[in-house]
């Protein structure tokens, strides 16, 4: 009896001591943060620099899970949807942040400290991560789509790239510069199936032909002339003036092709600029020009906006330590640290006004001006020529979008590989998307989910 009581008392004392130690010492003594992130160059740099963070925050250990984009997305989605709690910090995009924020799956990041300078974040970028006035993720880097072109090839052929080209002009250039005998292809574009791969580009192409994913009543608009025109144009362009096997090429494959000097033009994410302009990683550094993403009927939604951002799942038990880390990794001092270590052109782009006010960066990064102008020009709230009930340019801010765009993307990649006709597949896709939306209750009088407010 007494023995047990004694033991109990000792236990209580021990517990009290532990609590005391925890509250008096640094708030996160001996915590391990599990960070899920993408294997893109900027994130790999973050991992390399995180040793500094661990040094200045004794007791904090960072456990990195670095995965390819699609694999990471599967891991994160299953974990967060089932409240698995595996991760303390997650890397998510402009698609997930508002959806998961609205679900309260993420910790809101209110009351940011003054030295974080939240006002320095680009307004367009911050808005993508905000739901009902709460910020749910902090931007790590942001990208628009831009046109890359080889200034030496253009000069040799006496061509001039306009600041804001049209797709017809791009096709004209591609035709003249396509020279497969010498290993130079007219244009490289994303062909790999996936809503974040080929459908990102095709989303902007459809927008610039005046099309849209859904009308105001959530009826899919895939079997309409703008889609047929845009997708046929895309398939013809790549088949005639693209590299062999374009349906295998995603962002990274095209980046490698362009950096090896195999593409005369390339329309893709502005974040590739850091690589193609870096002489260590690119054979064409110094011979690359940058222009706005091509448009056609309209320039509305002709350039995409994507934000890689860091967020904290609400299932994390070390939210305070996680918050400290993500604020560090998206801060101005961090950007400066990257510039010092890897050169100014490697600064995480697209998130802070101050980056674009820095003359060193503007000189070192020839793509900075176009990126900044594109990021400023996009308007995710009014992405298309005709009104739509959703936000986002190359994405539609509803959970069903992944299913819908995965399906359409797969069909188009098939057509690019020579299987099936574009017109038939768009008709089939229209039916399939309609079914998905019907299933999800978009056409019922009583919708199962809260629909997004229609934009005026």
């Amino acid at each position, binding site marked *: 009896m007494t023995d047990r009581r004694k033991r109990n008392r000792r236990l209580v004392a021990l517990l009290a001591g532990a609590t005391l130690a925890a509250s008096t010492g640094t708030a996160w003594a001996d915590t391990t943060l599990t960070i899920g992130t993408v294997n893109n160059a900027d994130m790999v740099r973050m991992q390399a620099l995180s040793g500094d963070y661990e040094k200045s925050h004794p007791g904090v250990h960072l456990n990195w899970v670095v995965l390819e984009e699609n694999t990471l997305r599967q891991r994160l989605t299953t974990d967060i949807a089932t409240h698995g709690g595996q991760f303390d910090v997650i890397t998510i995009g402009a698609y997930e942040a508002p*959806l998961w924020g609205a*679900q309260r799956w993420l910790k809101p990041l209110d009351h940011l400290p003054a030295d974080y300078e939240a006002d320095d974040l680009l307004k367009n970028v911050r808005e993508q991560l905000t739901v009902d006035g709460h910020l749910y993720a902090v931007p790590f880097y942001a990208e628009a789509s831009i046109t890359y072109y080889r200034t030496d090839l253009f000069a040799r052929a006496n061509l001039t790239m306009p600041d804001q080209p049209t797709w017809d002009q791009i096709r004209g250039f591609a035709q003249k510069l396509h020279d497969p005998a010498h290993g130079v292809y007219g244009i490289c574009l994303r062909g790999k199936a996936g809503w974040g791969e080929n459908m990102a580009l095709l989303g902007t192409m459809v927008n610039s032909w005046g099309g849209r994913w859904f009308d105001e009543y959530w009826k899919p608009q895939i079997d309409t002339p703008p889609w047929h025109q845009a997708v046929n144009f895309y398939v013809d362009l790549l088949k005639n003036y693209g590299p*062999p*096997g374009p349906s*295998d090429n995603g962002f990274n494959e095209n980046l490698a092709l362009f950096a090896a000097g195999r593409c005369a033009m390339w329309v893709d994410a502005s974040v590739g600029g850091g690589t193609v302009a870096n002489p260590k990683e690119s054979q064409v550094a110094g011979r690359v020009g940058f222009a706005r993403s091509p448009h056609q009927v309209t320039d509305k939604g002709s350039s995409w906006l994507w934000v890689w951002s860091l967020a904290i799942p609400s299932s994390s038990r070390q939210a305070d330590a996680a918050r400290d880390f993500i604020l560090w990794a998206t801060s101005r001092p961090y950007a400066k640290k990257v510039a010092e270590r890897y050169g100014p052109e490697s600064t995480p782009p697209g998130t802070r006004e101050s980056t674009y006010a820095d003359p060193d960066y503007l000189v070192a990064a020839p793509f900075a001006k176009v990126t900044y102008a594109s990021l400023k020009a996009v308007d995710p709230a009014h992405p298309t020529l005709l009104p739509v009930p959703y936000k986002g340019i190359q994405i539609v801010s509803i959970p069903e979008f*992944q299913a819908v765009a995965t399906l359409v993307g797969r*069909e188009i*990649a098939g057509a*690019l*590989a020579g299987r099936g006709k574009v017109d038939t597949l768009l008709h089939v896709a229209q039916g399939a998307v309609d079914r998905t939306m019907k299933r999800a209750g978009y056409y019922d009088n009583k919708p199962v989910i809260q629909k997004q407010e229609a934009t005026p």
Partner: protein
Amino acid sequence: MNATVRKRPERLLAQPAIVMLLVWMIVPLAMTLYFSTQYYNLLYPGKSAFVGLENFAYFFTYPSFWTSVLNTVVLVGSVLAVTVVGGVLISVLVDETFPGQGIVRMLLISPFFIMPTVAALVWKNLLMNPVSGFLAWLWKLFGATPVNWFADWPLLSVIVVVSWEWLPFAILIFVTALQSLDREQLEAARMDGARGMAIFRHLTLPHLARPIAVVVMVEAIFLLNVFAEIYVTTNGGPGDATTNVPFLVYTQALLEFDVGAASAGGLVAVVLANVMAIFLIRLIGKSLTER
């Protein structure tokens, strides 16, 4: 009831194991059945609702469904044909004694021990790559344009990879079976003047009937579930050219996060596998029971 139990205590002792097995099987199956009647999108767990058989209707009318069934049948059928025919021929060939027989047999069987993902990567990047692959080099050696295997002949390429993996299994079974072939019978046949072809047709093949049945059935079970090779090499594409039923279920569950339709698809795959198994057993099972 109590009396019988007391009479047979061993039956009581077996109960825990049986219950364990039952739970092991029933719980996942029941959950799959339950989920197959729900509208359950992983991205919106709050709005799950009972939808009856809608998930099945959805899965059956999915644009890629019939393609995937056809792909599954073609894949299983061709790999079975290649491994059985090729396996028998190679085993007969290496059954004759020749110098280095042990090493050759060893090499023939070794691909079976390579993990499917590794095998697929080797084929994709080292052999069939249109720029740097061995086959591309071979093609160029003869002045031909290298073939972009996984883009232009996707299903054929997957069949080649999977056949390469399963051929050793067939050889393993057939070689061991041939060793039990009665040598006296063989000599008697030779003395009667039978030539190689006749011996093969009337002695070897009948002797191999039972092992062939075993190979077909074991392989069919595994081939219906081929996933890793497709995931690594073609990702089901281009389009849905190499999407089989398991890959379609994966697409539903982890690319579209539609748990309901994926569960329905899983059940459909189970039924499909059973139909094929019954068909195969009817077709070949006879040779197992005849003797």
